[in-house]
């Protein structure tokens, strides 16, 4: 029998974070899939816009800017809170900082959703009014359901912190939840520009 060398890996870590762990790549895969979906929604918006004689259709006012712009600020703020939570636990092992950051991001996420409901309870058209209404409502409902789901997910992360689950070494779940949160915030920016600015720049 021939003699073989062995590659001993017993001292390699099992607790890794970021791109070293498979979970991070799995989440990145989900994010890419969702980017394609949002891209398809935006492409549909412009496709319908360039076919329509008037955009928004005759009789519909331009979308109001103030509330959604403030609300965009709220959403961007939540990303900073998530970043604070992530670095608190993964760089300092600070569970309290994690909870403060997560709690603040949850609050901002809920504020965003409430303001969206307020905003769209004031518009005069619905999804069945015309193609403009169809695509705008679809974009808003689709994105808001993402905010809702990432709020719920973050609630789970927060609940686990009560069980003492997170530590400086074991922070991959926080990180992976964090990149999804940042994605939900970042993808809102092209939607915001599409829905609120496009009809003003090119009516």
């Amino acid at each position, binding site marked *: 029998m021939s003699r073989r060398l062995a590659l001993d890996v*017993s001292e390699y870590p099992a*607790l890794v974070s970021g791109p070293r762990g498979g979970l991070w790549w799995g989440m990145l895969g989900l994010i890419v899939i969702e980017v394609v979906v949002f891209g398809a929604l935006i492409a549909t918006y412009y496709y319908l816009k360039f076919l329509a004689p008037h955009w928004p259709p005759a009789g519909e006012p331009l979308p109001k800017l103030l509330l959604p712009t403030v609300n965009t600020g709220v959403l961007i703020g939540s990303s900073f809170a998530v970043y604070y939570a992530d670095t608190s636990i993964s760089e300092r092992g600070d569970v309290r900082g994690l909870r403060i950051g997560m709690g603040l991001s949850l609050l901002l996420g809920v504020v965003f959703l409430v303001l969206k409901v307020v905003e769209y309870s004031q518009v005069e058209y619905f999804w069945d009014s015309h193609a403009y209404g169809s695509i705008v409502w679809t974009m808003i409902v689709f994105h808001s359901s993402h905010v809702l789901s990432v709020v719920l997910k973050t609630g789970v992360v927060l609940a686990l912190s009560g069980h003492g689950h997170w530590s400086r070494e074991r922070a991959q779940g926080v990180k992976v939840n964090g990149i999804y949160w940042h994605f939900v915030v970042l993808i809102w920016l092209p939607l915001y520009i599409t829905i609120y600015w496009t009809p003003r720049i090119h009516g």
Partner: protein
Amino acid sequence: MATLEPAVTPDARAGDPELLERTWGSPPGLLGWLMEVNHRRIGRRYIATGFALFLLAGLEALAIRMQLAVPENDLLGPEVYRQFFTMHGATMMFLFAVPIMLGIGIYLVPLQIGARDMALPRMNALGYWVYLIGAVTLYTAFLLGVAPNSGWFNYPPLSRREHELTIGIDVWISVVTILEVAALIGAVGLIVTIFKQRAPGMSLNRMPIFVWSILVMSFMIVFAMPTLMTTSIFLGLDRRVGTHFFNPGGEGDPLLWQHMFWYFGHPEVYIMFLPGLGMVSMVIATMTRRPVYGYTPVVLSLVATGVLSFGLWVHHMYATGLPRLGTSLFTAASMLVTLPTAVQFFCWVATLWGGRPRFTTALHYALGFLVIFLIGGITGVQLGAVPFDLQVHDTFFVVAHFHYVLLGGVVFPLFAGIYFWWPKVTGRLLSERLGKLGFWLMFAGVHLAFWPQHHLGFMGMPRRVYTYLPEMGWGPLNLLSTVGAFTLAAGVAVFLVNAAVSLRRGEPAGDDPWGGETLEWSTPSPPPVYNYRWQPTVKSRTPLWDPDWGTQPVVTGLREDQREMLSTTLLDARPDNREILPGPTLVPLVTALATAVPIVGVLFGLHWVPIGAALFFVAITAWNWPGAMPHRTEEPGGREHRLAQREREREEAEEEAGS
């Protein structure tokens, strides 16, 4: 020669087959079956389910051919015929081709890269359950007589509510959505596995070509399939809540569907045959006993095909009155995509030319693929040109073209792959005599069935008509085509006999019946549940053909009383961390059911959507709750924490030295 024995083992128990069997095995009985997470068992289920659906779609095709065999036939009638050709197309595209290729990838990729399992085993199981639910839903609707009936690409306005009052279109929307979810789950699992679990030393440029083809396919799924989901949901919204995406009366546009559908649909064709190209490369290399000529151009061609396929969709829409300049650009792009395919053809021919090929059944199918796919490719170039396309659009010429492409590009490579890897999967050989008989029947059947359809197309016979008048003169060629379809079916039947005989009393195959070059041939047939007693390392593209393969180092030091495997870095495959995997669990099945509640439930009422979403949240929370794996439940200060801490200190020291 096959089993690797390390000279140095840090732990006396290392490489203990009994312990590994206990750790990686599944619980017995029905419950164990439902809890399965092993990649090979799940891959086998994909392949078996996909093959069963292939047979069903084949029976549907035979019924279609019987209806068309003679003029003014009334065997099926218009409504049943509509359902049959829709079911045949939808089954072949969504339920057979993509899932079976995913299944083969799920089975083979971890073996070929020297891993013990997929990177995300529970997600892998979830993908299969979701796929199964989609298949069962579609065929339940078929049995109840409410199958979709507007063709596999389901164009509005035909498929919008005012024209189509049956529930069949809603079934199509739900089933397609759920199948896309399944394919996306499978694709992400494969990408992560290929990125993170390759054997030490298997840098990207040493990956087997089949693994490359699966990687490219998975990326294409990720970028193409979400578009179909989006547009299907638009159609569902149009039908259920009165949106106007495809309604010209509400400033929508039915052509939007065609753009979004074919933006998915054209890459879909390539998604289906890229793994076939990968399989053919493996078969040709092993059967000529030399590495494929031009590894780098072959791999780059696979990647280029994948990228270019996203710029071709309009060539399905030449007859819709789009601007001429636009269609010309898509003609150019359609010509362009032939180049990477041609590069691969020349590389295969060069491999065969300089070698001494062994004409096994697997190689027969690979060569059959070359011929049939070439013909389909040539008619594809013809159809890519606008003036030609406008003459034969929506005629049987198109039917002939894509059957040559798909039988050539998917079914023949699939059979090449089945004959090639059957001994590895089952441990038994298939009969070469029956195999070659089946091959010649299938090869003759394809040409008999589909060559005449080119002529029928030129004679003006449109697609999707359920019958025609005798005066049209289409009768004789249609009859010939039907005879061909039955010849093809006879070839498939011979394979089924061959498979049944082999399972009962086939000759034992041994580890490596063909003298293969990739890692899967170094482990027993069928492989043990843990795949490799020691995870291998490699230093070339054809590790088993290395003269010093017998002394190649193996991986040791992984705990064997829990599911541990080695993760490596993305580009160079240097050892990076130990991945601790979850064991058998019901969570994937429960999550699949929760996924199905909103998507299938919407057929019965919109209120199922929020109910399903809530169930899904509960399931996914249970999924992520820390389980029994030590690194997820250990108190800070335990071994895993200490190892991670040491790793961090090492990284920090490296950073400091670097700056």
